Each structure stands twice: as C-alpha cells, then as structure tokens.
C-alpha cells in the first residue's frame, strides 16, 4: 500500500511534493524554524505527509510545542498549496530543499545552513570554482576598480562570482563579472522577487540570465537590516574562495570572513595603502594570514587555472606623448582635483585640462566628479 502511494507520488512529479515543502517553509515566521522542519520531514517523510497528518498525530510525535501545532493547523487552513505554487512559478522562482539533488553541495553538512533555497535563474554549478567578491558598501574609486578588475578577470576565466548585490563592492563584483561575459550569483537579504537596493535593478535582472539570485527567505519578504549579515553565511558557504576587496577596520565583511574560515574556505584580501582607513580591514586580514590578492592570476592559480597572461592586471604601459605621460603619471587611483594634477605635472591648468580630456576620451582615466580624475583599471 505504502509502496503504491510512493510510486504514485513519483509519477506526480516533484511539483506535487514541492508545493507542500513550500508550505512548510512558509511556516518560518510562525515559529517553525529549520530545526523543527527538519525533524518534521524526518518523522513524517515529506512536507506533504506533514500536511496530511491529523492534529493528534502531530501531538503524538512529541517534539512539537502546542504553539507550533497550532501554527501548522492554522497554516493548513489559510494556505492554498496549488495557488501558492502557481504564484511562485509565475514569478519564475524555483525552490529547492536540502534533501534534493539540486541543493548546492557546498552548503550541505555545514552548520547553520537553511533547509531550503529560493532562486531565480540558476544555482552555482558544482563543477566550477566560485569566488565571492565582497567589501564595503561605501567603495572608493580604488575599490571599485579592483572589484571590477578582479571579478572581470576571474569570471572571464570561468570562475563563478558570488556576492550580495549590495551597493559598493558587491555591485561592482557582479558588474565586473557580467561585463566580462561571466556568470554571477547574488545572495539576497530579502525575498528573491525583490531588488534591494532598487538602483541595482539592472544587475538584478541581468544576473538572472547569466547566473542567478538566491535567497533563503520566502518570496515577498521585505529587506530588513538583520537579514543581511545573516545571508552572509550563505555567501561564505557557496564560494570556494572569499575575496575581500575593500573593508574598514570594523566592517560587515568581517562576519563573512569569519564564516568562510569556519567553513574552511580560502580567504584573500586586496591590499591597500597602510594609512587608508578604507583598506585597514583588508590589510589587517593579510597580516592575520589571509592571502594577498595582488592579481587575479594568484587566485586562478589557487584553482589550478593557468592563465594565459591576459588576466594579469596590467599597469597601463601605454605609449603616450611626453606631456600626456606627465599628466597621466599625476593621476592616481584616488580621485584628484584638476589643480593638484596641474601643479604636480608643472603644466598650465588649461593645457592640463585639455590633456585630461584627451586621456579621458582614450579611456585611460575617468572623471568621477567635476574636475576630479582617477585612473581607469589598476
């Protein structure tokens, strides 16, 4: 009898099963956490079975509190599994639980992992290396350039780039990967159907085509401050190597770094100037033994990918006229105003300005704000 039913369920396909798993997941907010869900699934076999159990049977199981039983009963009454599942499918969101083959192997067996993931697009592939590029939301031009360059070079070599879609370094990491035609995944601190911050909507939609957005939260969950540090553990789990591009002494990135170390991931940091507060966290990590990310090649080497030389960050050895060279050498990795550049190069301001425009048109430098210039690339 039981065999027959199992066979019938198999024929129904996963969908039939999954809509009940989705229901079970939705009880998160009502006091049924991952631990309770795991125990329920173990005891009764699947979400569908839990859905079918009588209240007395649930009580007999012995491990549920009265409140939790009430939540399950109430949840059954209000939740329409078919309707809700159709809604989810309409949004293009997939759901996978930890006991299914699609669930990321990198996350299995780690403590504190969620028991299910919602995602749009796809999940990171197991057979490809993945690198998390993280850092401060308030990024300097240096951090921006480094994030773009590292993510770009790594993604071009086939590495999957993982980050948190936050403002600053996270966003530049995704952007660099996408610009290089690579694959990138964003782990969100809200439902997978929501884009936060809203200004990253372009990245958000683009990365669903070239990778995916992942969340442990039920679709529709609004962003909340506490959810962001929590999702960092998933970033740490999904990567093979964690690259911190720019972090202050006390930064949210340190949470991710500690998680990554706990999960046995390699940690690299991009060094900064010794007196630069925005890089102090990175420098401290290097001092504590993190790998020094001098170039993407060093990271590729860690994965045994031999780079063809293209992935070196090349110092722009360009053939420029002497005056242009003079001006270019005065433009640094941090924004510098026109008058300072003019003074340093010893050329009249108006001539300097013309050269700066020329350099800008040739793509060597960038004007980050009116008459503030910074080098492009590293």
């Amino acid at each position: 009898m039981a065999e027959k039913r199992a066979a019938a369920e198999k024929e129904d396909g996963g969908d039939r099963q999954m809509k009940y798993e989705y229901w079970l997941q939705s009880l998160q907010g009502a006091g049924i956490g991952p631990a309770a869900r795991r125990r329920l699934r173990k005891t009764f076999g699947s979400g569908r079975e839990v859905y079918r159990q009588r209240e007395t049977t649930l009580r007999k199981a012995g491990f549920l509190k009265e409140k939790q039983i009430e939540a399950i009963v109430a949840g059954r009454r209000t939740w329409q599994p078919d309707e809700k599942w159709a809604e989810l499918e309409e949004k293009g969101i997939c759901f996978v639980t930890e006991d299914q083959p699609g669930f990321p192997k990198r996350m299995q067996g780690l403590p504190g992992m969620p028991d299910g993931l919602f995602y749009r697009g796809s999940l990171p592939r197991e057979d490809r290396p993945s690198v998390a590029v993280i850092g401060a939301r308030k990024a300097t031009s240096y951090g921006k350039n480094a994030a773009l360059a590292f993510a770009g070079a790594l993604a071009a070599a086939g590495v999957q780039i993982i980050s948190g879609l936050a403002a600053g370094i996270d966003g530049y990491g995704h952007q660099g990967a996408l610009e290089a035609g690579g694959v990138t995944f964003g782990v969100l601190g809200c439902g997978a159907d929501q884009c936060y911050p809203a200004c990253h909507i372009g990245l958000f939609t683009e990365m669903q085509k070239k990778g995916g957005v992942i969340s442990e939260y039920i679709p529709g969950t609004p962003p909340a401050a506490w959810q962001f540090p929590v999702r960092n553990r998933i970033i740490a789990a999904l990567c093979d190597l964690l690259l911190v591009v720019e972090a202050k002494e006390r930064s949210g990135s340190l949470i991710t770094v500690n998680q990554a170390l706990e999960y046995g991931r390699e940690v690299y940091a991009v060094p900064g100037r010794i007196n630069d507060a925005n890089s102090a966290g990175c420098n401290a990590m290097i001092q504590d033994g993190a790998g020094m990310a001098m170039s993407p090649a060093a990271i590729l080497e860690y994965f045994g990918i031999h780079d063809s030389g293209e992935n070196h960050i090349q110092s722009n050895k360009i053939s420029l006229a002497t005056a242009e060279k003079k001006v270019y050498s005065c433009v640094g990795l941090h924004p510098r105003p026109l008058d300072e550049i003019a003074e340093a190069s010893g050329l009249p301001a108006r001539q300097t300005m013309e050269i700066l425009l020329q350099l800008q048109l040739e793509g060597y430098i960038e004007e980050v704000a009116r008459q503030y210039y910074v080098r492009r690339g590293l």
Partner: protein
Amino acid sequence: MFCSVTSAIVQGLSGQLVSVETDISEGLPMFEMVGFLSGEVKEARERVRTALRNCGWRLPPRRITVSLMPASMRKRGSGFDLAIALAVLGAMEQYPVKTLESAVVIGELGLDGRIHSVPGVLPMAIEARKQGITCCLVPAKSAGEAAMLHDMKVVPVEHLGDLVRQLQKGALPRKKPILWEQVKKETEDRSRVDFGQIRGQTVVKRVAEISAAGRHNLLMTGPPGSGKTMVAKAIAGILPALTYEESLELSQIYSVAGLLDPEMPFLTHRPFREPHHSCTQAALAGGGLVPKPGEISLAHGSVLFLDELPEFRRSVLDMLRQPMEEGVVHIARSGDTYDYPADFMLVAAMNLCPCGLFPQAECTCTPAQVARYRSRVSGPLLDRIDLQIQVPKITYRQLAGDASDQQEGEKERETQEDSAAIRKRVQAATAVQRRRYRNEPFSANSRIPGEKLDVYCSLTGEQHAWLEQVYDRLGLTARGYHKILRVARTIADLDGAELISDAHLREALSYRSGDR
C-alpha cells in the same frame, strides 16, 4: 468750485496716470472720496484733512467730493495724498489752478504737511512723459529718480505749505537733471571683487569669462571656503558696462521695489543679488499682496547668485525654470497679471555631498547621502545650466603669494589680470553676438534655441564625427550636446573666430555640466 490734478500709480512695472478731481459744492458738510479705492487710499482723507489744518487751512463746511479716475481701476498706495490735497486747495482757490495743468503730482502727506516719498516714482514719471506731461512734483527724496529723465521738469517738494506758497508765486524750483554718464564715471564700484584680487584659479577665471561673455548660467562646485562667492561677485563686475537704457529699466524695477538710495537714486553698475537659501518663492520670483519684483527681477541683466543650491527649497528652485526660459516672470493676481523682466544670469554654488569633501577619500558621506543631496537640485534646472566648474581650495602658496616663493609670485603677478581687462574681451564678444543676432529675438549665445543651433554653431564633417565619438564615450545627452555647442560658440567669439574650431570644442567639453 471744481479742480483736477493729475497723479499716477504703478501697476507692475508701468505707471498709469490717475486724475484726481475735487468738487466743493453746497450741501451738508462732508468729505467724500470715490473711485474704487483701497483702504490706504481712503485713509488719505484723514491725512489730507489734518495736514491742511496744520498748514493753516480750514476745510470749508461744505460738501467736498473727491473722485479718482479712471474709476474702473483699483487704486492702491499712499501716493495720491499730495494730489488730493492740491486738488482740494485748488477747489478752494488757494493757488492759480493753471500752474498744475501739465504736471503730475506724487507724494504721501504727513500730518504736519511734510511730504514723504513713495516707491515707483521713476516708472510713473516715465509714463507721464509718454503722455506728454512735462513737469512732475515729487517728494524731494525721490526727485533724483525722476531727474534721470532729461526732458522732464522735476520739482522736488518737501512741505505742503511751502509748495502752495511757491504755486501762489508761480515759481516752482527745478531740480537739475542728472547727467547719468557723468555720475557713472564718478561713482566707482567699490562693492565689487576684482579678478585681480583672486590669485591663481586660472581655469575658474576663464570659465567666469566665458560665462559672462555668452551669459551662460554657471554652476560652481567645490569644498566650503574655496572662494565661490568671491568669484560670483567678480563675475558681475566683468559683465559689459551698464548703458543708460538698461539703467533706466533696472532703476524702474528698483524704484518699484523701493530699493533706491536717495543719494544715488539709480543704478550705475550691474547689481549682484545674493538671496539667502531660506528665501521664499515670493521673495525670489516676486509677489506679495501688493506684488513687488523679486530677486530674479532685481538681478535683471546681471548675476543672481544662489549659494548652497541644494539648501534652497525645491519648489523655490523649480520656479526659476520659466523665467530662465523667457526672461520674464508673470505674476497673476485676481484681476491683474504683473510682468517683471527677469533676464538674469544664474551663478550657483554647491558642495557635492553634505560634508563637502566628495569625491575625496576623506568624505564621510554614504553613497545614498550623496545621491540624495544632489537630487535636491532638479534635473530640469541643471539642464538650464551650461557651465560647471570645480573651484579648488586655495593653497597656502596662493594665499601667502610671493612671500613664500618670490619667483613664482613674480610670475603670477604678471599673469594676474584685473577685471577691466577681462571686461574688455567680454564686451567685444557681446558686441559680436549682438550683431550676429540682430534679426533674432535673442541676443546671447546661451539663448540660442535648439533649432537654430545648426545655423549659428555649424561644425565641419570631421568635427561632427569626432563629437559623435565623444558623445558615446562620455555618455552625453541631447541637452548636453546643445550646451557644448553654445559654449563653443562663445569661446569662438571670445577668440574673434568666425567658425568654431576643434580647440573651442575641446575646451567647451571640459566645462560641460549636468552629466554628474
């Protein structure tokens, strides 16, 4: 007995003649005033009655009717007092009525018979001249305003009693006409900042020159204390010198606003207006219960400087858009629309973030804060600003000058130009533009409409090709492209060039605004 005296009123910026008629006839003793009068005009009855008594006249115990014509026009203000008093006295046959036949009478009466000034004497006098009136009796304090009109006999009056005695004698004293050109030469503009006083900052000075030459609106960004206000003040000083006609127009605005100084009752130099950022809509654009010109009209033909642009209320800033387009501001009141000229040049200053240090590493603002700060200035307003420049912090060397570096200072002093030299170039460029646009409704490069750009800012094929490249590379917009053409035209005019050259285009590109 009947008597009529002509007075005037200001509506918006134009004067309008009002005739004050008085009739004294048999009947119960009363003093009645008619003619669509507002409260302050009705009160004139008490002032006139008391002033007459204090000057030694007693109103006859008969029926006195005063009528102000045309009766369909609402009459405001206290400028009719003197005319009413003279009309009453005329009806009492206290002086030969003929003496006032071709005169306009303006002034407010004190209870002691002294005559006080009212705003708007100049536009009233101008209107009177237009109507063929050759003499005007105005309060002594405002006499200078009217004396700008050379073909007008201006009689300064101080006291009602004295005036009537003079009328009885038939000898009215005349104020000497003011020779504007001469006064202008004598009055030096002491309030101005001279570019000669500003050390270094060559790029800023250059942009100021371009901005003045083409009347381009300018946005200065930069850290606090870098001298943005000084530069803005100096820009007002390099605009072409004020002509008599321009001064007459400007002085009328100031006359209506009641801002003319009795010592110097007209403008000899272009004004510099610098409203504080707590300024209201009415203060900036003009308005009020009795509409008065606002800051933008007071800056007509000159510089309106808005410091800390994002601190202004957004609704206040957005109101600038229409006047910036048309050069006139329309203020509608029930029954009346007032048009004030407002062809000003906007010079604005702002920091790039709340702490003022963006984009340097020391800036402590979050990206969201920076974005929010900048979004306080609306895009459409920025679209109307052609030039943007960073005003760098003044270095110690620039401050201390030659003391710290003898040779450098020597060199710098040589290249230090004063405003007079810059103004000469600006004036030449302005003349070129006026000639070029003589058949157009506009007269400055910054006002060339989009569809006329092809005519006046034509480029060669190569330049088009180059600009197309730049367009994509720098991510310009259509508006941004137009601005570059207009600015390039001005740079070419400063250069005395007929055609826009590559160098002009490149320079214009460096000062482009709006895309960040």
